[in-house]
């Protein structure tokens, strides 16, 4: 039923329809509303026999999810940012053990400096963990992806992370068509574990694997992810057949047919980008957009197919590898090897910096004229940076940069050194 609802609430309602059996999570902004809502539903008995387990940390949350999943339960959790880092070891274990846990990642920056706002640094930090990572453009897609995620995870015995932009999506109230229980039940069969801790048929899960077999086990995990590249489109098509909605899949193209420039991005910024692209199209520029839904596994072939006819590709991403450049851009460049496409990297929206349509229009205007460099930081305040560089040059004890920059901007009254 189409409902005007907060994104977090839509996720909670959809997770509930997936009949989770164990939910364990530790609250952290901007994930909190999701977990609060699921917790209330469990307490009210709506999800019986689901158990909500209070834990003392994110590390415990993922560890409980691992135990629950190994015992054959459909397990769900959610986190963000520092919480994800705190559970990092268990995140790798969940994937290494091949346990089909579904986790919502309410994307948020990672400190220091401490920052609770949105970017994709947290998702990028676990890029290589072995989890499937799907990025939602809207709250509708975020909700729909959770149903697909359980299906995908359990078919392949791989954990799936649904990435949705913290605050921008989680705290936005907009129309979401919530699914029916009957639809979800028909689409998502009961969990049939590939491996299970069963007293009647004892096995051990989590063997120590030495050099004689570690590489093979890892390669098998890679094969499962490659398998996901085939399953994700099928699962999305079946979802479309059941709902009429194009949620999920690997990549999505928008107005790219004749494009000289294609912008690539992930998550909710795609909406603002599409608005800006429409405006540049009205000005006669041939520009389009490709949204990456499946970041891991990375759909290199589909990306190449979607982009290869464009002379220029602009990758706009909310994270970067410090000392190198774009993370998504690196993958895109690899996928485009030999095509002659020029790839431009744009880092934007770090730590919640709004990505405005006007900034995007200016960016696309420059792109159309071939004026973009290899790596650009959108809306970077160069003067603030230069003043801090000057302070650092002026004396050895220039003090902490974060505090200096805040003081420079007049947003803090902290007194101390470095003035």
């Amino acid at each position, binding site marked *: 039923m189409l409902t*005007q609802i*907060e994104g977090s609430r839509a996720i909670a309602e959809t997770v509930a329809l997936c009949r989770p059996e164990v939910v364990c999570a530790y609250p952290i902004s*901007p994930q909190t509303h999701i977990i609060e809502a699921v917790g209330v539903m469990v307490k009210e008995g709506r999800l019986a026999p689901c158990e909500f387990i209070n834990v003392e940390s994110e590390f415990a949350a993922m560890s409980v999810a691992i135990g629950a999943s190994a015992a054959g339960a459909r397990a769900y959790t959610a986190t963000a940012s520092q919480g994800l880092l705190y559970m990092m070891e268990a995140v790798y274990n969940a994937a290494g053990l091949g346990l089909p846990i579904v986790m919502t990642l309410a994307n948020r920056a990672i400190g220091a400096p401490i920052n*609770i*706002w*949105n970017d994709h640094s947290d998702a990028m930090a676990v890029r290589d963990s072995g989890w499937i990572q799907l990025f939602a453009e809207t709250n509708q897609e975020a909700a729909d992806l959770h149903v697909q995620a359980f299906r995908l995870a359990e078919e392949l015995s791989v954990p799936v992370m649904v990435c949705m*932009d913290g*605050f*921008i999506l989680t*705290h*936005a*109230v*907009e*129309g979401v068509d919530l699914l029916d229980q009957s639809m979800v039940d028909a689409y998502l069969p009961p969990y049939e574990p590939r491996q299970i801790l069963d007293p009647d048929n004892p096995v051990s899960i989590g063997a120590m694997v030495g050099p004689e077999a570690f590489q093979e086990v890892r390669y098998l995990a890679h094969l499962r992810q490659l398998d996901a590249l085939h399953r994700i489109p099928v699962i999305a098509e079946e979802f479309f057949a059941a709902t009429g909605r194009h949620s999920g899949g690997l990549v999505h193209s928008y107005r790219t047919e004749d494009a000289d420039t294609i912008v690539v991005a992930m998550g*909710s*910024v795609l*909406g*603002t980008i*599409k*608005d800006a692209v429409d405006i540049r199209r009205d000005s006669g520029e041939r520009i389009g957009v490709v949204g990456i839904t499946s970041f891991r596994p990375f759909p290199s072939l589909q990306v190449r197919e979607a982009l290869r006819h464009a002379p220029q590709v602009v990758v706009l991403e909310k994270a970067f590898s410090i000392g190198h450049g774009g993370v998504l851009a690196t993958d895109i460049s690899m996928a485009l090897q030999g095509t002659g496409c020029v790839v431009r990297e744009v880092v934007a929206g770090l730590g*919640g910096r*709004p*990505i*405005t*349509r006007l900034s995007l229009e200016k960016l696309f205007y420059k792109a159309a004229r071939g004026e973009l460099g290899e790596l650009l930081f959108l809306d970077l305040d160069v003067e603030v940076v230069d003043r801090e560089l000057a302070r650092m040059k002026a004396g050895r004890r220039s003090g902490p940069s974060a505090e200096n920059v805040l003081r420079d901007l007049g947003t803090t009254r902290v007194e101390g050194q470095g003035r």
Partner: protein
Amino acid sequence: MFQVRIHGRGGQGVVTAAEILSVAAFDEGRQAQAFPSFGSERTGAPVVSYCRIDDREIRTREPVMAPDAVIVQDVTLINQVDLFSGLSPVGFVLINTSRTFAELGLAELYDRFPRPHLVTCPATEIALEHVGRPLPNAALLGAFASLTQQITLEAVQKAIRDHFAGAVGERNAAAAAAAFDAVVTLEEEFARADTD
């Protein structure tokens, strides 16, 4: 697209106001998007929320920087926040106050925006009378409906009742109705000043 920016302080229901407004628009068959300015909100700190209303899919995720209407829940923000930044030249201003624009030192708005688009409403007093608590957000949405005619009072009242269960919902809906009738335009303010 019609874009609204709501200014207030933590605890005044600024975020709830945007959400209720979006639900009211949704109930009238329109597309709507409401979201808060994301920060570490605490009681008393300046808070901003946004609402977009359109007849087409709303794709943008940027903050509302060029609003068609600004709602000010707390007049003490006037000297603290750039309340009217980016407001459309034909935009609407709704301020929660029992004072006049002139008394607030905002007479200059008279030159910047259409006179009938500038209104005050004693929403806190109305809320105290009807709800018993100084929470002006529901009342202001009634005033907003009267001022902009983007939504009906009935839709606002239904959304309020959906959000606040039972008697609290009824009282807030009554506050919205009272505020709907209590908006004072700057034009009226001037007319009253002339007759004084």
